[in-house]
Protein backbone atom coordinates (compact mmCIF):
# COMPACT_ATOMS: atom_id res chain seq x y z
CA UNK A 1 0.00 0.00 0.00
CA UNK A 2 1.23 3.49 -0.84
CA UNK A 3 2.02 5.45 2.35
CA UNK A 4 -0.13 8.44 3.30
CA UNK A 5 2.73 10.92 2.92
CA UNK A 6 2.93 10.33 -0.83
CA UNK A 7 -0.67 11.36 -1.24
CA UNK A 8 -0.23 14.41 0.95
CA UNK A 9 2.92 15.56 -0.81
CA UNK A 10 1.30 15.09 -4.19
CA UNK A 11 -1.74 17.08 -3.05
CA UNK A 12 0.48 19.84 -1.64
CA UNK A 13 2.35 19.95 -4.95
CA UNK A 14 -0.92 20.25 -6.91
CA UNK A 15 -2.09 22.94 -4.52
CA UNK A 16 1.10 24.93 -5.03
CA UNK A 17 0.78 24.63 -8.80
CA UNK A 18 -2.74 26.03 -8.46
CA UNK A 19 -1.63 28.91 -6.23
CA UNK A 20 1.27 29.84 -8.52
CA UNK A 21 -1.04 29.65 -11.52
CA UNK A 22 -3.54 32.02 -9.91
CA UNK A 23 -0.76 34.46 -9.15
CA UNK A 24 1.06 34.49 -12.52
CA UNK A 25 -1.56 33.68 -15.17
CA UNK A 26 -3.31 36.65 -16.79
CA UNK A 27 -6.26 35.00 -18.49
CA UNK A 28 -9.32 34.95 -16.22
CA UNK A 29 -10.47 31.52 -17.41
CA UNK A 30 -7.05 29.97 -16.78
CA UNK A 31 -7.06 31.56 -13.32
CA UNK A 32 -10.36 29.82 -12.73
CA UNK A 33 -8.93 26.51 -13.83
CA UNK A 34 -6.06 27.01 -11.39
CA UNK A 35 -8.55 27.60 -8.60
CA UNK A 36 -10.29 24.34 -9.56
CA UNK A 37 -6.89 22.67 -9.34
CA UNK A 38 -6.50 24.00 -5.79
CA UNK A 39 -9.92 22.64 -4.84
CA UNK A 40 -9.15 19.26 -6.35
CA UNK A 41 -5.90 18.99 -4.44
CA UNK A 42 -7.91 19.68 -1.29
CA UNK A 43 -10.27 16.88 -2.29
CA UNK A 44 -7.33 14.56 -2.69
CA UNK A 45 -6.10 15.43 0.81
CA UNK A 46 -9.53 14.76 2.24
CA UNK A 47 -9.84 11.40 0.54
CA UNK A 48 -6.34 10.34 1.53
CA UNK A 49 -6.92 11.19 5.19
CA UNK A 50 -10.36 9.67 5.11
CA UNK A 51 -9.14 6.38 3.65
CA UNK A 52 -6.22 6.10 6.04
CA UNK A 53 -8.25 6.94 9.13
CA UNK A 54 -11.18 4.76 8.09
CA UNK A 55 -13.44 7.75 8.66
CA UNK A 56 -16.00 8.32 5.92
CA UNK A 57 -16.94 11.89 6.75
CA UNK A 58 -13.95 13.30 4.85
CA UNK A 59 -15.19 11.70 1.64
CA UNK A 60 -18.56 13.26 2.25
CA UNK A 61 -16.98 16.70 2.40
CA UNK A 62 -15.52 16.05 -1.05
CA UNK A 63 -19.01 15.84 -2.51
CA UNK A 64 -19.85 19.21 -1.03
CA UNK A 65 -16.64 20.74 -2.34
CA UNK A 66 -17.34 19.43 -5.84
CA UNK A 67 -20.89 20.77 -5.78
CA UNK A 68 -19.84 24.19 -4.57
CA UNK A 69 -16.98 24.29 -7.09
CA UNK A 70 -19.50 23.66 -9.86
CA UNK A 71 -21.74 26.46 -8.59
CA UNK A 72 -18.78 28.77 -8.27
CA UNK A 73 -17.65 27.99 -11.82
CA UNK A 74 -21.16 28.73 -13.10
CA UNK A 75 -21.27 32.12 -11.37
CA UNK A 76 -17.68 32.90 -12.27
CA UNK A 77 -18.09 32.11 -15.97
CA UNK A 78 -21.31 34.14 -16.09
CA UNK A 79 -19.42 37.09 -14.63
CA UNK A 80 -16.59 36.63 -17.13
CA UNK A 81 -19.14 36.68 -19.98
CA UNK A 82 -20.74 39.86 -18.58
CA UNK A 83 -17.33 41.49 -18.38
CA UNK A 84 -16.34 40.33 -21.86
CA UNK A 85 -19.46 41.96 -23.31
CA UNK A 86 -18.40 45.26 -21.76
CA UNK A 87 -14.67 45.22 -22.30
CA UNK A 88 -13.98 42.66 -25.07
CA UNK A 89 -11.14 41.18 -23.07
CA UNK A 90 -10.62 38.71 -20.26
CA UNK A 91 -7.00 39.60 -19.64
CA UNK A 92 -6.72 40.56 -15.99
CA UNK A 93 -4.05 43.18 -16.67
CA UNK A 94 -6.48 45.12 -18.84
CA UNK A 95 -9.28 44.95 -16.29
CA UNK A 96 -8.04 47.97 -14.40
CA UNK A 97 -10.75 50.61 -14.11
CA UNK A 98 -10.61 50.41 -10.36
CA UNK A 99 -7.31 50.88 -8.62
CA UNK A 100 -5.85 52.52 -5.54
Amino acid at each position, binding site marked *: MIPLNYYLLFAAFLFSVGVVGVLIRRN*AIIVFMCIEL*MLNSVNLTFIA*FSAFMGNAIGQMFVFFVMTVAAAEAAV*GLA*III*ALFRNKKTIN*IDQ*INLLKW
Partner: protein
Amino acid sequence: MLEQVYNSLQFIKPELILVGTLLVSIIVDLIFKNKKVVVAFVILGLVLSFYYLTFLNSINQLIFFNMYAIDPFAYFFKIFLLVATIGIVLFSVLSKEISDLKSREGEFYYFLVALTIGMFLMTSSTNLIMMYLAIELTSLTSYMLAGFMKEEKSSSEASLKYVLYGAFSSGMMLYGISIIYGLTGSFDLLAINMAIADGVSSLALLISTVLMFVGFGYKISAVPFHFWTPDVYEGSPISVTTILSVASKAAGFSMLMRTAKIMFIDPYAAPTVNDWQIIDSVPIVEILTILSVLTMTLGNLVAIWQSNLKRLLAYSSIAHAGYLLLGVLTMNNEGYSATLIYFVTYLFMNVGAFLIVMLVSNKLNSSDIDSYKGLGMKSPFIGVMFALFLISLTGLPPTAGFVGKLYIFAALVNKKLILLAVIGVLNSVVSLYYYVRIFRNMFLRESDIETPEIKLSLAEKLLILVFAIPTIGLGLYFAPLVEFAHASVEIFSGN
Protein backbone atom coordinates in the same frame (compact mmCIF):
# COMPACT_ATOMS: atom_id res chain seq x y z
CA MET B 1 -32.44 10.04 13.91
CA LEU B 2 -35.54 11.32 12.16
CA GLU B 3 -36.83 12.42 15.51
CA GLN B 4 -33.83 14.66 16.12
CA VAL B 5 -34.24 16.28 12.72
CA TYR B 6 -37.90 16.80 13.50
CA ASN B 7 -37.14 18.28 16.93
CA SER B 8 -34.48 20.56 15.48
CA LEU B 9 -36.85 22.09 12.95
CA GLN B 10 -38.67 24.15 15.56
CA PHE B 11 -35.45 26.05 16.32
CA ILE B 12 -34.77 27.15 12.76
CA LYS B 13 -38.15 28.72 12.05
CA PRO B 14 -36.58 32.10 11.20
CA GLU B 15 -34.33 30.45 8.62
CA LEU B 16 -37.20 28.38 7.22
CA ILE B 17 -39.32 31.50 6.83
CA LEU B 18 -36.50 33.21 4.95
CA VAL B 19 -36.17 30.23 2.61
CA GLY B 20 -39.94 30.33 2.06
CA THR B 21 -39.78 34.06 1.37
CA LEU B 22 -37.03 33.50 -1.17
CA LEU B 23 -38.96 30.82 -3.05
CA VAL B 24 -42.29 32.61 -3.01
CA SER B 25 -40.83 35.95 -4.04
CA ILE B 26 -39.30 34.31 -7.13
CA ILE B 27 -42.82 33.34 -8.16
CA VAL B 28 -44.24 36.73 -7.17
CA ASP B 29 -41.56 38.35 -9.28
CA LEU B 30 -42.69 36.31 -12.29
CA ILE B 31 -46.36 37.19 -11.88
CA PHE B 32 -46.36 40.91 -11.09
CA LYS B 33 -45.11 43.62 -13.43
CA ASN B 34 -44.81 46.10 -10.59
CA LYS B 35 -41.65 45.15 -8.74
CA LYS B 36 -42.64 46.99 -5.55
CA VAL B 37 -44.85 43.95 -4.80
CA VAL B 38 -41.69 41.88 -4.47
CA VAL B 39 -40.24 44.49 -2.11
CA ALA B 40 -43.35 44.37 0.06
CA PHE B 41 -43.20 40.60 0.09
CA VAL B 42 -39.53 40.51 1.04
CA ILE B 43 -40.05 42.98 3.88
CA LEU B 44 -43.02 40.94 5.12
CA GLY B 45 -40.87 37.80 5.14
CA LEU B 46 -38.02 39.52 6.99
CA VAL B 47 -40.37 40.93 9.63
CA LEU B 48 -42.06 37.56 10.10
CA SER B 49 -38.68 35.93 10.50
CA PHE B 50 -37.78 38.57 13.08
CA TYR B 51 -40.97 37.77 14.98
CA TYR B 52 -40.16 34.07 15.20
CA LEU B 53 -36.56 34.83 16.04
CA THR B 54 -37.57 36.68 19.22
CA PHE B 55 -38.86 33.39 20.70
CA LEU B 56 -35.33 31.96 20.65
CA ASN B 57 -33.75 34.55 22.94
CA SER B 58 -32.72 32.38 25.87
CA ILE B 59 -32.21 29.00 24.25
CA ASN B 60 -28.74 27.54 24.37
CA GLN B 61 -28.36 24.22 22.62
CA LEU B 62 -27.03 22.35 19.63
CA ILE B 63 -29.37 21.01 16.98
CA PHE B 64 -29.03 18.85 13.85
CA PHE B 65 -26.44 16.45 15.29
CA ASN B 66 -24.26 19.21 16.77
CA MET B 67 -23.98 21.03 13.46
CA TYR B 68 -25.92 24.12 14.35
CA ALA B 69 -25.93 26.18 17.54
CA ILE B 70 -28.91 28.10 18.84
CA ASP B 71 -27.39 30.33 21.52
CA PRO B 72 -27.57 33.96 22.71
CA PHE B 73 -24.53 34.84 20.62
CA ALA B 74 -26.17 33.68 17.39
CA TYR B 75 -29.40 35.34 18.52
CA PHE B 76 -27.66 38.70 18.82
CA PHE B 77 -26.12 38.47 15.37
CA LYS B 78 -29.34 37.27 13.76
CA ILE B 79 -31.23 40.25 15.17
CA PHE B 80 -28.43 42.45 13.91
CA LEU B 81 -28.50 40.90 10.43
CA LEU B 82 -32.27 41.19 10.13
CA VAL B 83 -32.25 44.85 11.18
CA ALA B 84 -29.43 45.53 8.71
CA THR B 85 -31.19 43.71 5.88
CA ILE B 86 -34.53 45.42 6.45
CA GLY B 87 -32.69 48.75 6.55
CA ILE B 88 -30.91 47.97 3.31
CA VAL B 89 -34.08 46.85 1.55
CA LEU B 90 -35.65 50.23 2.39
CA PHE B 91 -32.40 51.88 1.36
CA SER B 92 -32.43 50.14 -2.04
CA VAL B 93 -36.01 51.22 -2.71
CA LEU B 94 -34.75 54.81 -2.77
CA SER B 95 -31.70 54.01 -4.88
CA LYS B 96 -31.80 55.13 -8.50
CA GLU B 97 -29.25 52.50 -9.49
CA ILE B 98 -31.58 49.74 -8.37
CA SER B 99 -34.84 51.11 -9.75
CA ASP B 100 -33.12 51.68 -13.10
CA LEU B 101 -32.76 47.91 -13.37
CA LYS B 102 -36.45 47.74 -14.38
CA SER B 103 -37.41 44.09 -14.98
CA ARG B 104 -34.50 42.76 -12.95
CA GLU B 105 -35.32 44.86 -9.91
CA GLY B 106 -37.27 42.08 -8.22
CA GLU B 107 -34.32 39.72 -8.51
CA PHE B 108 -32.18 42.10 -6.53
CA TYR B 109 -34.43 41.86 -3.49
CA TYR B 110 -34.67 38.12 -3.34
CA PHE B 111 -30.93 37.85 -3.71
CA LEU B 112 -30.74 39.98 -0.57
CA VAL B 113 -32.90 37.36 1.17
CA ALA B 114 -30.61 34.59 -0.06
CA LEU B 115 -27.65 36.54 1.29
CA THR B 116 -29.38 36.83 4.66
CA ILE B 117 -29.96 33.07 4.78
CA GLY B 118 -26.28 32.49 4.13
CA MET B 119 -25.28 34.90 6.86
CA PHE B 120 -27.73 33.31 9.33
CA LEU B 121 -26.09 29.95 8.68
CA MET B 122 -22.66 31.50 9.16
CA THR B 123 -23.51 32.83 12.62
CA SER B 124 -24.79 29.51 13.89
CA SER B 125 -22.60 26.84 12.32
CA THR B 126 -20.45 24.78 14.65
CA ASN B 127 -19.21 22.34 12.09
CA LEU B 128 -16.59 23.00 9.44
CA ILE B 129 -18.76 21.54 6.67
CA MET B 130 -21.65 23.81 7.60
CA MET B 131 -19.29 26.76 7.93
CA TYR B 132 -17.82 26.19 4.49
CA LEU B 133 -21.24 25.84 2.88
CA ALA B 134 -22.54 28.94 4.67
CA ILE B 135 -19.54 31.02 3.58
CA GLU B 136 -20.00 29.85 0.02
CA LEU B 137 -23.74 30.60 0.04
CA THR B 138 -23.00 34.11 1.24
CA SER B 139 -20.12 34.60 -1.18
CA LEU B 140 -21.85 33.29 -4.30
CA THR B 141 -24.80 35.59 -3.65
CA SER B 142 -22.52 38.55 -3.03
CA TYR B 143 -20.65 37.91 -6.30
CA MET B 144 -23.92 38.15 -8.18
CA LEU B 145 -25.05 41.23 -6.26
CA ALA B 146 -21.72 43.01 -6.83
CA GLY B 147 -22.07 42.53 -10.58
CA PHE B 148 -25.75 43.30 -10.63
CA MET B 149 -25.52 46.30 -12.95
CA LYS B 150 -24.06 44.13 -15.67
CA GLU B 151 -24.06 46.89 -18.31
CA GLU B 152 -21.73 48.97 -16.17
CA LYS B 153 -18.06 48.28 -16.75
CA SER B 154 -17.08 48.99 -13.16
CA SER B 155 -19.75 46.72 -11.70
CA SER B 156 -18.81 43.68 -13.76
CA GLU B 157 -15.15 44.37 -13.11
CA ALA B 158 -15.84 44.52 -9.38
CA SER B 159 -17.66 41.22 -9.42
CA LEU B 160 -14.88 39.50 -11.40
CA LYS B 161 -12.30 40.67 -8.88
CA TYR B 162 -14.56 39.59 -6.05
CA VAL B 163 -15.12 36.13 -7.47
CA LEU B 164 -11.40 35.57 -8.15
CA TYR B 165 -10.26 36.68 -4.68
CA GLY B 166 -13.17 34.89 -3.06
CA ALA B 167 -12.60 31.57 -4.79
CA PHE B 168 -8.87 31.78 -4.12
CA SER B 169 -9.25 32.43 -0.42
CA SER B 170 -11.94 29.80 0.00
CA GLY B 171 -9.52 27.37 -1.64
CA MET B 172 -6.88 28.37 0.94
CA MET B 173 -9.37 27.94 3.74
CA LEU B 174 -10.40 24.51 2.48
CA TYR B 175 -6.79 23.39 2.46
CA GLY B 176 -6.55 24.51 6.09
CA ILE B 177 -9.72 22.58 6.90
CA SER B 178 -8.31 19.46 5.23
CA ILE B 179 -5.17 19.61 7.38
CA ILE B 180 -7.26 20.11 10.51
CA TYR B 181 -9.31 17.09 9.50
CA GLY B 182 -6.15 15.06 9.11
CA LEU B 183 -4.92 16.14 12.54
CA THR B 184 -8.15 15.61 14.45
CA GLY B 185 -10.33 13.31 12.36
CA SER B 186 -13.41 15.46 12.75
CA PHE B 187 -15.22 18.49 11.41
CA ASP B 188 -17.06 19.25 14.61
CA LEU B 189 -15.60 22.28 16.41
CA LEU B 190 -16.07 20.77 19.87
CA ALA B 191 -14.42 17.49 18.87
CA ILE B 192 -11.58 19.40 17.19
CA ASN B 193 -11.16 21.39 20.40
CA MET B 194 -10.81 18.20 22.46
CA ALA B 195 -8.33 16.74 19.98
CA ILE B 196 -6.23 19.92 19.99
CA ALA B 197 -6.23 20.02 23.79
CA ASP B 198 -4.98 16.43 23.86
CA GLY B 199 -2.01 17.51 21.76
CA VAL B 200 -1.42 17.49 18.02
CA SER B 201 1.56 18.51 15.90
CA SER B 202 1.79 22.21 16.60
CA LEU B 203 3.45 23.21 13.31
CA ALA B 204 0.71 21.57 11.25
CA LEU B 205 -1.90 23.12 13.52
CA LEU B 206 -0.34 26.56 13.09
CA ILE B 207 -0.30 26.24 9.29
CA SER B 208 -3.88 25.05 9.15
CA THR B 209 -5.05 27.79 11.51
CA VAL B 210 -3.36 30.47 9.42
CA LEU B 211 -4.90 29.02 6.24
CA MET B 212 -8.33 29.01 7.83
CA PHE B 213 -7.87 32.61 8.88
CA VAL B 214 -7.30 33.50 5.23
CA GLY B 215 -10.94 32.53 4.68
CA PHE B 216 -12.18 34.51 7.68
CA GLY B 217 -9.89 37.44 6.95
CA TYR B 218 -11.25 37.66 3.44
CA LYS B 219 -14.83 37.80 4.73
CA ILE B 220 -14.09 40.52 7.28
CA SER B 221 -11.66 42.25 4.85
CA ALA B 222 -8.68 42.22 7.18
CA VAL B 223 -5.27 43.22 5.83
CA PRO B 224 -3.52 41.40 4.04
CA PHE B 225 -6.65 39.78 2.58
CA HIS B 226 -8.37 43.07 1.84
CA PHE B 227 -7.37 43.62 -1.80
CA TRP B 228 -10.84 42.99 -3.12
CA THR B 229 -12.53 45.43 -0.72
CA PRO B 230 -11.89 48.89 -2.27
CA ASP B 231 -12.48 47.69 -5.82
CA VAL B 232 -15.66 45.81 -5.01
CA TYR B 233 -17.01 48.59 -2.79
CA GLU B 234 -16.36 51.18 -5.47
CA GLY B 235 -17.68 49.17 -8.40
CA SER B 236 -20.83 47.61 -7.00
CA PRO B 237 -24.17 49.38 -6.54
CA ILE B 238 -24.09 51.38 -3.29
CA SER B 239 -26.79 49.23 -1.70
CA VAL B 240 -24.60 46.18 -2.18
CA THR B 241 -21.55 48.02 -0.86
CA THR B 242 -23.50 48.83 2.27
CA ILE B 243 -24.67 45.32 2.94
CA LEU B 244 -21.18 43.95 2.30
CA SER B 245 -19.60 46.46 4.65
CA VAL B 246 -22.05 45.89 7.48
CA ALA B 247 -23.93 42.60 7.38
CA SER B 248 -21.48 40.37 5.60
CA LYS B 249 -18.68 41.67 7.80
CA ALA B 250 -20.77 40.95 10.91
CA ALA B 251 -21.42 37.41 9.76
CA GLY B 252 -17.72 36.88 9.14
CA PHE B 253 -16.89 38.24 12.58
CA SER B 254 -19.47 36.06 14.31
CA MET B 255 -17.95 33.03 12.67
CA LEU B 256 -14.40 34.08 13.56
CA MET B 257 -15.38 34.75 17.18
CA ARG B 258 -17.23 31.46 17.52
CA THR B 259 -14.36 29.47 16.01
CA ALA B 260 -11.74 31.26 18.09
CA LYS B 261 -13.63 30.63 21.28
CA ILE B 262 -14.70 27.03 20.70
CA MET B 263 -11.58 25.70 19.03
CA PHE B 264 -8.82 27.28 21.06
CA ILE B 265 -10.09 27.39 24.63
CA ASP B 266 -8.73 24.72 26.95
CA PRO B 267 -11.68 22.42 27.70
CA TYR B 268 -9.95 20.96 30.79
CA ALA B 269 -9.39 24.29 32.55
CA ALA B 270 -11.93 25.29 35.14
CA PRO B 271 -14.55 27.46 33.44
CA THR B 272 -13.98 31.10 34.29
CA VAL B 273 -16.31 33.95 33.53
CA ASN B 274 -13.81 36.38 32.23
CA ASP B 275 -10.36 35.20 31.25
CA TRP B 276 -10.42 32.17 29.06
CA GLN B 277 -7.60 29.62 29.18
CA ILE B 278 -6.17 29.40 25.69
CA ILE B 279 -4.48 26.24 24.50
CA ASP B 280 -0.75 26.98 24.30
CA SER B 281 -0.02 25.18 21.03
CA VAL B 282 -1.54 27.90 18.81
CA PRO B 283 -0.54 31.58 19.02
CA ILE B 284 -4.09 32.66 18.28
CA VAL B 285 -3.87 35.95 20.16
CA GLU B 286 -0.65 36.89 18.37
CA ILE B 287 -2.18 36.12 14.97
CA LEU B 288 -5.19 38.28 15.77
CA THR B 289 -3.00 41.09 17.10
CA ILE B 290 -0.92 41.24 13.91
CA LEU B 291 -4.06 41.18 11.76
CA SER B 292 -5.68 43.89 13.82
CA VAL B 293 -2.79 46.35 13.89
CA LEU B 294 -2.08 45.90 10.16
CA THR B 295 -5.76 46.25 9.30
CA MET B 296 -6.48 49.47 11.11
CA THR B 297 -3.19 51.17 10.27
CA LEU B 298 -3.25 50.39 6.57
CA GLY B 299 -6.97 51.11 6.28
CA ASN B 300 -6.60 54.54 7.84
CA LEU B 301 -3.39 55.54 6.07
CA VAL B 302 -4.58 54.61 2.60
CA ALA B 303 -7.97 56.25 3.17
CA ILE B 304 -6.21 59.62 3.37
CA TRP B 305 -5.33 59.52 -0.34
CA GLN B 306 -8.77 58.61 -1.65
CA SER B 307 -10.76 60.98 -3.84
CA ASN B 308 -13.82 58.80 -4.35
CA LEU B 309 -16.12 58.69 -1.37
CA LYS B 310 -17.17 55.06 -1.87
CA ARG B 311 -13.53 54.05 -1.94
CA LEU B 312 -12.76 56.21 1.09
CA LEU B 313 -15.56 54.55 3.03
CA ALA B 314 -14.25 51.18 1.87
CA TYR B 315 -10.85 51.89 3.45
CA SER B 316 -12.58 53.29 6.50
CA SER B 317 -14.55 50.05 6.80
CA ILE B 318 -11.26 48.13 6.61
CA ALA B 319 -10.00 50.29 9.49
CA HIS B 320 -13.15 49.57 11.47
CA ALA B 321 -12.56 45.85 10.99
CA GLY B 322 -9.23 46.49 12.71
CA TYR B 323 -10.89 48.10 15.72
CA LEU B 324 -13.36 45.22 15.89
CA LEU B 325 -10.48 42.74 15.85
CA LEU B 326 -9.04 44.56 18.86
CA GLY B 327 -12.14 43.50 20.77
CA VAL B 328 -11.84 39.91 19.58
CA LEU B 329 -8.18 39.48 20.46
CA THR B 330 -8.74 40.17 24.15
CA MET B 331 -10.34 36.70 24.17
CA ASN B 332 -12.58 37.32 27.14
CA ASN B 333 -16.24 38.09 27.73
CA GLU B 334 -15.58 41.79 28.12
CA GLY B 335 -13.80 42.10 24.79
CA TYR B 336 -16.39 40.01 22.98
CA SER B 337 -19.26 42.09 24.30
CA ALA B 338 -17.38 45.28 23.38
CA THR B 339 -17.14 43.95 19.82
CA LEU B 340 -20.89 43.36 19.75
CA ILE B 341 -21.56 46.89 21.03
CA TYR B 342 -19.23 48.30 18.39
CA PHE B 343 -21.07 46.40 15.69
CA VAL B 344 -24.43 47.91 16.61
CA THR B 345 -23.05 51.44 16.56
CA TYR B 346 -21.18 50.69 13.33
CA LEU B 347 -24.43 49.51 11.72
CA PHE B 348 -26.20 52.83 12.20
CA MET B 349 -23.36 55.19 11.40
CA ASN B 350 -22.02 53.30 8.41
CA VAL B 351 -25.37 52.62 6.76
CA GLY B 352 -26.25 56.28 7.43
CA ALA B 353 -23.08 57.51 5.75
CA PHE B 354 -23.60 55.26 2.73
CA LEU B 355 -27.25 56.36 2.56
CA ILE B 356 -26.16 59.98 2.15
CA VAL B 357 -23.57 59.03 -0.47
CA MET B 358 -26.28 57.12 -2.32
CA LEU B 359 -28.80 59.99 -2.21
CA VAL B 360 -26.20 62.49 -3.40
CA SER B 361 -25.06 60.24 -6.23
CA ASN B 362 -28.74 59.75 -7.22
CA LYS B 363 -28.85 63.45 -7.98
CA LEU B 364 -25.29 64.34 -8.99
CA ASN B 365 -24.29 60.98 -10.53
CA SER B 366 -20.98 61.20 -8.76
CA SER B 367 -19.45 60.08 -5.50
CA ASP B 368 -16.30 62.11 -5.95
CA ILE B 369 -15.24 64.14 -2.92
CA ASP B 370 -14.87 67.27 -5.06
CA SER B 371 -18.53 67.12 -6.03
CA TYR B 372 -19.38 67.63 -2.35
CA LYS B 373 -17.92 71.14 -2.40
CA GLY B 374 -20.40 73.64 -1.04
CA LEU B 375 -22.99 70.93 -0.50
CA GLY B 376 -23.40 71.69 3.19
CA MET B 377 -24.41 75.28 2.50
CA LYS B 378 -26.79 74.49 -0.34
CA SER B 379 -28.48 71.50 1.29
CA PRO B 380 -28.00 71.97 5.03
CA PHE B 381 -30.01 68.90 6.05
CA ILE B 382 -27.77 66.53 4.09
CA GLY B 383 -24.68 68.40 5.23
CA VAL B 384 -25.51 68.24 8.92
CA MET B 385 -26.59 64.61 8.83
CA PHE B 386 -23.49 63.56 6.90
CA ALA B 387 -21.34 65.45 9.40
CA LEU B 388 -23.06 63.59 12.22
CA PHE B 389 -22.32 60.17 10.69
CA LEU B 390 -18.72 61.16 10.00
CA ILE B 391 -18.21 62.38 13.56
CA SER B 392 -19.61 59.10 14.79
CA LEU B 393 -17.33 57.12 12.47
CA THR B 394 -14.36 59.01 13.90
CA GLY B 395 -15.54 58.13 17.40
CA LEU B 396 -16.09 61.53 18.98
CA PRO B 397 -18.65 62.07 21.74
CA PRO B 398 -21.63 62.39 22.04
CA THR B 399 -22.24 59.90 19.23
CA ALA B 400 -22.64 56.15 19.13
CA GLY B 401 -19.19 55.67 17.61
CA PHE B 402 -17.63 57.02 20.79
CA VAL B 403 -19.45 54.48 22.94
CA GLY B 404 -18.33 51.64 20.68
CA LYS B 405 -14.68 52.70 20.78
CA LEU B 406 -14.82 53.40 24.52
CA TYR B 407 -15.86 49.83 25.35
CA ILE B 408 -13.24 48.32 23.02
CA PHE B 409 -10.42 50.40 24.53
CA ALA B 410 -11.67 49.77 28.07
CA ALA B 411 -11.54 46.02 27.41
CA LEU B 412 -7.97 46.37 26.15
CA VAL B 413 -6.86 48.42 29.14
CA ASN B 414 -8.44 45.95 31.58
CA LYS B 415 -6.53 43.16 29.85
CA LYS B 416 -3.29 45.23 30.31
CA LEU B 417 -2.88 45.67 26.56
CA ILE B 418 -2.12 49.37 26.88
CA LEU B 419 0.09 49.53 23.80
CA LEU B 420 -2.69 48.20 21.56
CA ALA B 421 -5.13 50.70 23.03
CA VAL B 422 -2.69 53.51 22.26
CA ILE B 423 -2.31 52.30 18.66
CA GLY B 424 -6.10 52.25 18.39
CA VAL B 425 -6.44 55.81 19.67
CA LEU B 426 -3.69 57.06 17.34
CA ASN B 427 -5.51 55.44 14.46
CA SER B 428 -8.69 57.25 15.39
CA VAL B 429 -6.75 60.50 15.25
CA VAL B 430 -5.53 59.66 11.74
CA SER B 431 -9.09 58.86 10.70
CA LEU B 432 -10.19 62.28 11.92
CA TYR B 433 -8.04 63.81 9.19
CA TYR B 434 -9.81 62.24 6.23
CA TYR B 435 -13.28 62.55 7.70
CA VAL B 436 -12.68 66.24 8.32
CA ARG B 437 -11.57 66.64 4.71
CA ILE B 438 -15.11 65.74 3.57
CA PHE B 439 -16.50 68.04 6.21
CA ARG B 440 -14.33 70.90 4.96
CA ASN B 441 -15.41 70.32 1.36
CA MET B 442 -19.05 70.40 2.35
CA PHE B 443 -19.01 73.54 4.45
CA LEU B 444 -15.91 75.61 3.78
CA ARG B 445 -15.28 75.23 0.06
CA GLU B 446 -17.15 76.89 -2.77
CA SER B 447 -18.06 74.73 -5.71
CA ASP B 448 -16.29 75.58 -9.01
CA ILE B 449 -19.25 74.51 -11.05
CA GLU B 450 -22.88 75.33 -10.42
CA THR B 451 -24.36 72.37 -8.53
CA PRO B 452 -28.11 72.17 -8.06
CA GLU B 453 -29.58 72.08 -4.59
CA ILE B 454 -30.44 68.54 -3.59
CA LYS B 455 -34.10 68.22 -2.69
CA LEU B 456 -35.04 65.17 -0.69
CA SER B 457 -38.45 63.55 -0.58
CA LEU B 458 -40.12 62.93 2.77
CA ALA B 459 -39.34 59.19 2.63
CA GLU B 460 -35.68 59.92 2.07
CA LYS B 461 -35.53 62.34 4.98
CA LEU B 462 -37.32 59.85 7.24
CA LEU B 463 -34.92 57.05 6.35
CA ILE B 464 -31.94 59.29 7.10
CA LEU B 465 -33.48 60.06 10.49
CA VAL B 466 -34.04 56.34 11.14
CA PHE B 467 -30.25 55.95 11.10
CA ALA B 468 -29.37 59.35 12.54
CA ILE B 469 -31.49 59.09 15.69
CA PRO B 470 -29.82 55.89 16.97
CA THR B 471 -26.43 57.36 16.07
CA ILE B 472 -27.06 60.19 18.51
CA GLY B 473 -29.33 58.21 20.83
CA LEU B 474 -26.92 55.35 21.46
CA GLY B 475 -24.26 57.90 22.28
CA LEU B 476 -26.35 59.30 25.10
CA TYR B 477 -28.29 56.33 26.41
CA PHE B 478 -26.58 53.01 25.86
CA ALA B 479 -27.30 50.95 28.99
CA PRO B 480 -29.81 48.55 27.33
CA LEU B 481 -27.42 47.90 24.44
CA VAL B 482 -24.57 47.14 26.83
CA GLU B 483 -26.74 44.77 28.84
CA PHE B 484 -27.93 42.99 25.71
CA ALA B 485 -24.34 42.61 24.51
CA HIS B 486 -23.19 41.27 27.88
CA ALA B 487 -25.98 38.72 27.87
CA SER B 488 -25.13 37.69 24.32
CA VAL B 489 -21.52 36.61 24.63
CA GLU B 490 -22.52 33.22 25.89
CA ILE B 491 -21.41 30.88 23.13
CA PHE B 492 -22.37 27.23 23.18
CA SER B 493 -19.06 25.59 23.96
CA GLY B 494 -19.88 22.16 25.32
CA ASN B 495 -20.68 21.21 28.86
